[in-house]
């Protein structure tokens, strides 16, 4: 079940930051900048308790790249306020530019700030269109309790309703 953590099977694969407890249902891949808003949101969702592996896209270019070979929902913040071409942070683009990583994306959740007007959560729009997957949910900054509950339940239901193995 947790083959990706067994050394030698496939040394390329990354280990989850939070490994699924019990039966593994699916995975979430997220990115969080130094402000850690998305990281806090992820921690508050306790997705690992629900059988979801949680992987983190590395912040620094020197860190080893994230390699994932299973279906996942991508959760990313929007780099707000600038032009549309900057809305998706470069670390996320680097991750998605790897076709093997990209093959697993099944949906996107984006965060942002309504103050940014038309650019609000634009990273979700762009990735949804680029990867042809649904834009599942958005929240602001580090999300509210209601957002946490909806995402926790929603991610689980999504993988239950879309089994792939």
């Amino acid at each position: 079940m947790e083959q990706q953590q067994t050394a030698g099977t496939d040394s390329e694969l990354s280990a989850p930051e939070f490994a699924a407890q019990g039966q593994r249902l699916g995975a979430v891949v997220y990115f969080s900048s130094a402000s850690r808003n998305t990281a806090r949101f992820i921690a508050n969702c306790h997705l690992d308790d629900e059988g979801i592996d949680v992987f983190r896209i590395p912040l620094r270019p020197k860190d080893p790249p994230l390699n994932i070979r299973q279906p996942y929902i991508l959760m990313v913040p929007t780099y707000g306020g600038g032009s549309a071409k900057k809305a998706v942070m470069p670390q996320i683009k680097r991750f998605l530019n790897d076709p093997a990583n990209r093959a697993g994306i099944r949906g996107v959740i984006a965060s942002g700030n309504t103050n940014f007007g038309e650019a609000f959560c634009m990273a979700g729009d762009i990735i949804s269109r680029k990867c042809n997957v649904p834009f599942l949910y958005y929240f602001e900054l580090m999300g509210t309790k209601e957002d946490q509950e909806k995402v926790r339940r929603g991610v689980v239901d999504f993988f239950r309703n879309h089994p792939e193995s």
Partner: protein
Amino acid sequence: MSQQESTQESTKSEAGVYADDEMMRQSITPPQYRVTPEARIRPVNWNKITDEKDLEVWNRLVSNFWLPEKVPLSNDIPSWNTLTDHERQTTVRVFAGLTMLDTTQATIGELVQIDHARTEQEQAIYTNIAFMQSVHARSYSSVFSTLCSSEEIDKAYRWAVANDVLQERVHTVLHEYVSEDPLKRKVASTMLSSLMLYAGFYLPLYFSSHAKLMNTADMIRLILRDKAIHGYYSGYKYQRGLEERTQADQAMLEKFTNDLLDKLYDLEMVYSGQIYEGFPFVEDVFAFVRYNANKALMNLGYPARFAADQTDVSSEILAALSPSANENHDFFSGSGSSYVMGHSESTDDDDWDF
């Protein structure tokens, strides 16, 4: 002079020309002169970044730069002429109130964060933000000069100075700006940028949802975009500072934040109730204030306080704020079968391999 002598001469003089590592370490940035006037001063070096967030935020601030002269406010004159006297008077007062807060932020709120900045780039960023706050304060004057008579303008300023609630709001943050604890200053600054202005912003957003004063609303949206970064940045640096405090200090500052929020929240309620008396949307302004209070807390790294049913801002205001905030991206609730697959904004394909 032989060549050898000349080389020796230059080596000798170079000894005192360059600071060694120790001298560099002991050097200070200009604001620290107040504390150690005898120390050597170091100029800002943007090629030696210690916190990547500084460069990111500077770049965002610069790319968002704007001036009120670029907004065709005079196109709002016909619309202004359709407003009732009460609507006009309220607009002028609301903007005088906003000018009060932006003046405060530009002339002290950002500047008091320079002294205890964690990096030299952070010091520069507050000067950038302070300038932008002055642009915001200036932009309300542009609205006044475009739409109002000198008499109306004069009365707006007299109202702002005489209004006790407005005065108490600004005194409350000023009290923290002159306090000793640099993190308290950051909390107050974040509250101003992320919470206090929004009761005022509500009115131009409301008008724009009724197709009135559309250019003024465009200008307000530019201000909102800036405020998001200003509040985010002070909140971010607050959290970095907080991490280095003792547990007792962290608890004290969390309580301080909550108490300040309580006090400001009460004042926002009184202010909104008073200034918008007679308008049909007062309850919605209250929700908008709570919605932004949550965001102020989140910028400071604390959980949102108000539940969803208390921050349920009307969809017309949310749409005026952000057109896409009204689209259905709640696939999870089952109501999202009509999720939107993305707008047609172009992205930079050079950065994407696929």
